[in-house]
């Protein structure tokens, strides 16, 4: 039986960072989909909740997006029975508490973008994909 294809969502708006991570994911053979706007992610999550789309194995979620704060997307994912089991790694360069207000909803991991190399990120992703 063929194993289910594991896809990760990369939710990020900075083009340079997208390029860095894309290069790393391609070489590591990780299947991914890039979304630069919060609205795109919300629509996809709602489709998943209505069984119209496949769940990702992991979501790498940027905190600050052009159209919304990443915490709103986190609440949408973790606040629904059908999608709350999706692993979310919150990626950000912000470390002050105002930007991390999630009303008690926590990501599975918080990663400081400037504190992790692509190689280290790939290792974390591979460990997570093995678990799922």
């Amino acid at each position, binding site marked *: 039986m063929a194993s289910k294809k594991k896809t990760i969502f990369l939710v990020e708006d900075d083009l340079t960072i997208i390029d860095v*991570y894309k*290069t*790393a994911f391609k*070489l590591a053979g990780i299947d991914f989909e890039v979304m630069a706007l919060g609205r795109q992610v919300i629509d996809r999550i709602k489709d998943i909740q209505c069984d119209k789309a496949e769940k990702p194995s992991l979501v790498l979620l940027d905190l600050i997006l052009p159209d919304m704060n990443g915490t709103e997307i986190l609440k949408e994912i973790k606040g629904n029975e059908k999608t709350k089991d999706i692993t979310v790694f919150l990626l950000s*360069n912000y*470390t002050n508490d105002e930007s991390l207000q999630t009303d008690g909803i926590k990501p599975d991991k918080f990663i400081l973008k400037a504190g992790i190399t*692509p190689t280290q990120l790939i290792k974390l992703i591979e460990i997570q994909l093995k678990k799922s």
Partner: protein
Amino acid sequence: MEQTAELQKSIKVGDVGYVNKNCWLAKNLGYPPTKHCQYCQLKFTDCLFFRYSAISLFLVFVIFISAILIEGTVSKLLIVSVFTLIIIYGYYFDKSTESIIEANFAERKAKEALEELNENLQQKVDEQTKDIKQAYEVEKKAKEQLEAIDSVKNQFLMTVQHHLRTPLTSMMGYADLLLAGNFGKIPKKIKEVVKKFETSTTSLIKMVNEFLDVTQFQLGKEVVCLGDNVNLCPVFKDIFRDIELEAKRKGIYIKIEKPEGDCTIKADEAKLKAALTNIFDNAVKYTNKGGITIKLGVVDGMVKVEIKDTGIGISKERLPKLFDITFERTEEAKKTFATGRGIGLYLSSQVIKAHNGKIWAESEGEGKGSTFHIELPVEQRTKVVAVR
């Protein structure tokens, strides 16, 4: 005088009167001044007391003359009785008038005093209410200004974090990808250059993180995120491995006394490790002769760490503010280690305090070494077994 003249027009017998303490009659006859009306000083005939006294005397004189001139004992007795009654009536009328005047006067005085008090009180209340309102407005304005400044500081912090860290993320990312061979094999010389580039970028990121942490601490922001059951043993193991290598390179000794078994606390592992590393690193950095003795233990629910060195020491003047100073270094420290930034101790102490711990230092003075003490609350007790 003017007041007296005005009162003179309105006052009448039996009415409320005023007392003049300078009354001629009171002074000369020894009559208590409270029993005279205010007119006494002006005219004797206007003085109620004088009037009745004068009338009484006149009536006595008339009775006397009548008694002499009128014939018939009964008539004489009748006239005497009538005049006596008039005198007695006059006397008691006078007395009662005086009593009324006195009572009315006391009442009027009390009423005036009360009105004056009320007026003063109302004036004071009005003044205080005005002062309170003004103070409230000043405080409200100050609070709004502080909130505005706070908002600007938050915005500044967010902007700096984003704009400093984002390009650094890309720089570090590309260097890492190059070295990992993501863009194909690169020549050795270029690889060496890229490695130096990566090292500098990592160092710059570390510096930016520290500066941002200092700013966040100074703004009273949360910098640490405490997690449960963080095992300190592997943390100390990593730190000791690094400092033992450095100490060996410098030719100084390291003695470490630590307990067996695990020791778990509530902690932000990465931040705490960085804070502890800084303290241990300093001990090695600022010791050129002799060595360092490290003692770890768990006593009364606290992890206790003692780091004693034979290094450059700390002056008595600097000791009390050692963990509060930022961006300042002593000349001796600069000579020993040129590239320090002067924020390590401040950051370490803030992180340890955010872990509900304590840090303090002791030293006999410059050139006489120093001892740093750290305490952190544990979640699990551990016994000290042996010295290694």
